[in-house]
């Protein structure tokens, strides 16, 4: 008897149905946190000058966003409306502290490099915005998926911006990791050693200092918005 009841419940609410899939795919394009909702630009754009820290921040945001959504959704019926902001901030701040301590323990150089920007995930509007808009009104599992989706949509933009900024600004990819690659630019000694040729034709590029400046991130996002809106005309003039 219990089994049939369970089956019925499962049929009524599939664990990973079309709606649930949409929760994850929607923030990647139609409802992207950065280019459409304009939330969460603040905290992490300054870290996009290198690819590796951006990936770390993206993972941190996915983690914080997903679990903050989950916890808030569990508590949503017992949070009084007047103090909900403080409760949400405490949940987020706790998760961010977990991330900070974990990063300090496992990857100290990255932690040093990111300095205050880890703490600023707390005030990343996308986390707070999703808690307000979604987790306070939806069931835990769906809120969890929504958190993952928005974290991924956010991370995708971050990684695209970081890719161009590092490539154009330093000529490298993944600098600061064991798999650092020197793609273009003058010092390609390791590559020439590996390929056993003198790759002088790769050395024409001199680093573009504008791409290292924070301003370059703004230009790249502006161009991304332009590209997205020319394909997705229903987004034009949303804001």
């Amino acid at each position: 008897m219990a089994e049939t009841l369970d089956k019925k419940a499962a049929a009524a609410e599939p664990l990973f149905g079309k709606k649930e899939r949409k929760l994850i795919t929607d923030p990647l394009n139609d409802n992207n946190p950065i280019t459409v909702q304009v939330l969460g630009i603040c905290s992490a754009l300054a870290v996009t000058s290198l690819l590796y820290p951006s990936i770390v921040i993206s993972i941190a945001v996915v983690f914080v966003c997903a679990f903050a959504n989950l916890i808030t959704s569990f508590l949503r019926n017992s949070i009084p409306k007047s103090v909900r902001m403080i409760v949400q901030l405490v949940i987020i701040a706790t998760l961010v502290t977990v991330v900070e301590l974990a990063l300090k323990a496992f990857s100290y150089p990255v932690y040093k490099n990111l300095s205050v920007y880890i703490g600023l995930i707390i005030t990343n509007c996308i986390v707070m915005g999703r808690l307000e808009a979604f987790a306070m009104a939806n069931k835990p599992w769906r809120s969890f998926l929504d958190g993952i989706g928005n974290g991924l949509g956010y991370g995708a933009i971050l990684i695209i911006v970081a890719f161009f900024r590092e490539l154009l600004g330093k000529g490298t990819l993944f600098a600061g990791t064991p798999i650092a690659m020197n793609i273009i630019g003058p010092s390609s000694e390791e590559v020439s050693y590996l390929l056993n040729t003198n790759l002088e034709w790769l050395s024409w590029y001199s680093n573009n200092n504008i791409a290292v400046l924070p301003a370059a991130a703004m230009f790249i996002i502006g161009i991304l918005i332009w590209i997205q809106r020319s394909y997705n005309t229903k987004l034009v003039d949303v804001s």
Partner: protein
Amino acid sequence: MELFNVFIKSAFIDNLVLSYFLGMCSYLAVSKSVKTAFGLGLAVIFVLGITMPINWIINEFLLKETGILQTDLTFLRFILFIAVIASMVQLVEMVVEKASPALYAALGIFLPLITVNCAILGGSLFMVSREYTFGEAVSFGLGGGFGWFLAIIAIAAIREKIRYSNVPPGLRGLGMAFILTGLMGIAFMSLMGIDPASF
């Protein structure tokens, strides 16, 4: 004199918006007209100016190992700082509602948003990582707020004008605001050569 240097440095050279990208969300959302931008800018100066000294005192006398409790509580920093900021914003909201209902109506939901304005928490975290003294912290708060105020007024004025220009449809509004901010950031870079000590 030292304090004045910190003020100039935080307002122009290390501008919170244009060189650190802090407070971008409300900066882009509220910069459609100069009037609302003005109100929000003032609110940010006020909140930054108040929270910075409070957070400095909390950090120095409560969280550090040399404080009253003699234990290292720095891991509680985020939670305490954000609690101070949230309560201060609540206070500002009440004051504005009483003092200027027109401004309150104009700012609407953006006042609570100051809580999640990264410039405020970012300012406090910068204060800790740069090890400012009390006077410097106050001056940094006011200067940072003033820089934020200047930046939002400038972009709001530009966006009011650019509405009459022929911008490609995909770039209209948000896209253009991003590119303008980038250009302004480059313009502010030229202030980097100023040495505040020479005043």
